[in-house]
């Protein structure tokens, strides 16, 4: 049995009503716990792309994949976990910020390549995009100032380079575990 790790799946689905509900229902029904799920349009009309992050060992990952493929509206599933890929979240963080703290906070933003996008006499709102650990790092540094509010998206991810998705099933199901 291989180890349970955090996995990222890119799931291409038909853009039809209720598809998100079907996918979410599958994860709930099979006790696959979702850490984050993001859905959005792609450049192809009628095709949406989900990024699903969840904990799973190798066997479970293959079963998640196979179960996703069983859904009529699912076109392609790509397990990005061990592929060269880029993954990003976006977070907005509203922090207490007295006038004398502004310089320090803006310097922190520089270090994290975050931006202040709104400011009032006593607070500042910061936007950051990046991998989850970078966002977590910024949050931990900002916490002592007093975080008033925070919101973040789920992860979105894609492989580096060009991945050919012809949006048709692979001929051979990925039923074979490599971690025998």
């Amino acid at each position, binding site marked *: 049995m291989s180890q349970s790790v955090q996995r990222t799946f890119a799931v291409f689905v*038909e853009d039809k009503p*209720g598809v998100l509900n079907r996918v979410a*229902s599958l994860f709930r*029904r099979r006790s696959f716990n979702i850490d984050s799920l993001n859905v959005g349009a792609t450049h192809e009309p009628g095709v949406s792309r989900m990024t699903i992050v969840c904990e799973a060992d190798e*066997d479970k990952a293959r*079963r998640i994949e*196979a179960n996703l493929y069983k859904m009529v509206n*699912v076109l392609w599933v790509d397990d990005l976990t061990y592929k060269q890929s880029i993954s990003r979240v976006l977070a907005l963080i509203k922090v207490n910020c007295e006038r004398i703290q502004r310089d320090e906070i803006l310097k922190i933003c520089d270090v994290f390549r975050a931006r202040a996008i709104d400011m009032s006499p006593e607070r500042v709102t910061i936007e950051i995009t990046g991998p989850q650990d970078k966002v977590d790092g910024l949050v931990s540094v900002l916490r002592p100032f007093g975080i008033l509010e925070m919101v973040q998206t789920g992860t979105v991810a894609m492989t580096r380079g060009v991945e050919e998705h012809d949006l048709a099933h692979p001929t051979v*199901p990925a*039923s074979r575990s490599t971690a025998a």
Partner: protein
Amino acid sequence: MTPANPKLKNRIGESLSGASIIWESLVREGVEVCFGYPGGAIMPAYDAMIQYPVHHVLTRHEQGASHMADGYARASGQVGVCIATSGPGATNLVTGIATAMLDSIPIVCITGQVPSQLIGSDAFQETDITGCTIPVTKHNYLVTQPEQVAPTIREAFYIARSGRPGPVLVDITKDAQQQSCVFEWSDDEIVLPGYRPDYAPLAEQLEEAVELIQNAKRPILFAGHGVMKSQGTGALLEFINKTNIPVACTLLGLGGFPASHPRSLGMMGMHGETWVNKAIQDSDLIIAVGMRFDDRVTGNLKTYAPNAKKIHIELDPAEINKNVRVDVPIVGDARAVLQELLPHVDKCDREDWLAYIDEIKGGSSVRDIKNLPDLGKLYAAHVIHDLYRHTEGKALIVTDVGQHQMWEAQYYKHDYPMKLLTSGGLGTMGFALPAGIGAKFAKPEDSVWIICGDGGFQMTQAELSTCAQEGIKVNVAIINNGFLGMVRQWQEFFFGGRYVATPLLSPDFVKIAEAHGLTGIRVEKRSEVEAAVRKAEETEGTVVIDFRVEQEDSVYPMVPAGANLHDMIQRPDQPGEHEHNPIFETGEDD
């Protein structure tokens, strides 16, 4: 299959109501019988039905309709169809849909829905039935426009019957039934970009399987439901005649391999034969064909077949490594895979292994009770065995869920495929009577025997009225022990004998039958069994036999839930207990 039905006028290109298009589409899909119950939101469809050559069976409850469609599908191999209204009509179908889902049965359920502009307003009899049934259907649809009706029903049938079959629900709003559009029907191949039911096995996996089979010293083959679903019984027989590998069946696999074949072992699992479970535990290779290693089959997974390599031949990739880790997965149609393997495997005798199985078989038990003394008591095993003898194993048997279901599986030898219909995966009490009615419509020439307990029978007993109205003949054998027997058995074994909520007071079933204008017979002694069976077979119209059997008999052997497969509870066979347990098992009868 399009204009094959000469009774169907060609109305392609005409403007038709959505309601008419429902029937145009169903008839074009080959539907001759459907099971249903009308109501507000489906009334336009019912009104249009009279123009079409479809026989509608009015059930007494929508659950009966979905079970009948299921029974029809199981017996015929075709898609079964049920129809109901919105709200409670639709939710009442759900138990039958879930039953079909877990046993991979192709049914299409048509439900009415409130008019599309009212959806989401908690309108009268509104239920989000597509939302409700996502987890228990293979796929489902909400149709809100008449133009969508025909293509959706076509897709629904295609999805239901292809690949690993399953139930598909089509929810059609009332306005989509009432509005009209130009009727169009395409016979082109259906292309769904996200749906690929036809997996082909990998050459490399087939080679690995052949190597394992050639080198195995103690192989065993599991025949599951998939053998019959793929029409692979002939291929399996050929494979076994060549390889001489012993075959164990799952509950739903019974009949997929002839029970009287010398290599047939019988049923495996919780109430499987002792020697079968023992052989599994001692095997060095399992070839699992069209089955899914259900927990009722494996027992404790940690100690399951510890020395066996496992080849899993299965159409659904999501079943691979789900419960049991396998060495060689072969994803594909069971028949096709067996046919591909056949030329590559050698004839092989493995005499030691077969002799060993014969030895453990002789040492434990043989289920032949015909020579046992009649001590004046009636046991369920007697009833089933006598029924088997009288029908020569050729009846179409439909069982409910519980003790009688296991006794049937143990004492009725199934030599023929698709002659045992039972709710295996979901274990739905109340399944047998409606499923048996559905089966009778699929196989009117067959002698249909519905075997059920006194508990399960009462869950859907109202469908007797459907038998009477339709004038069909089925035979109902109620194994009446005055208890919810299987639960009582668990209470006896595992809950200190506290019989909580299991004693069951039933009405007089003979009078119930007579109240429906049907025939009722009561049997209390073994000597009366055969005469009653004969009378039932000879009587016109549905017959209900109330078999008053021993109240506290149990199903043996038994692997407690989650226990090791080889740790089975055996029927007590202490000296002096024979009188108490007259169906003691002995190897001497064979």
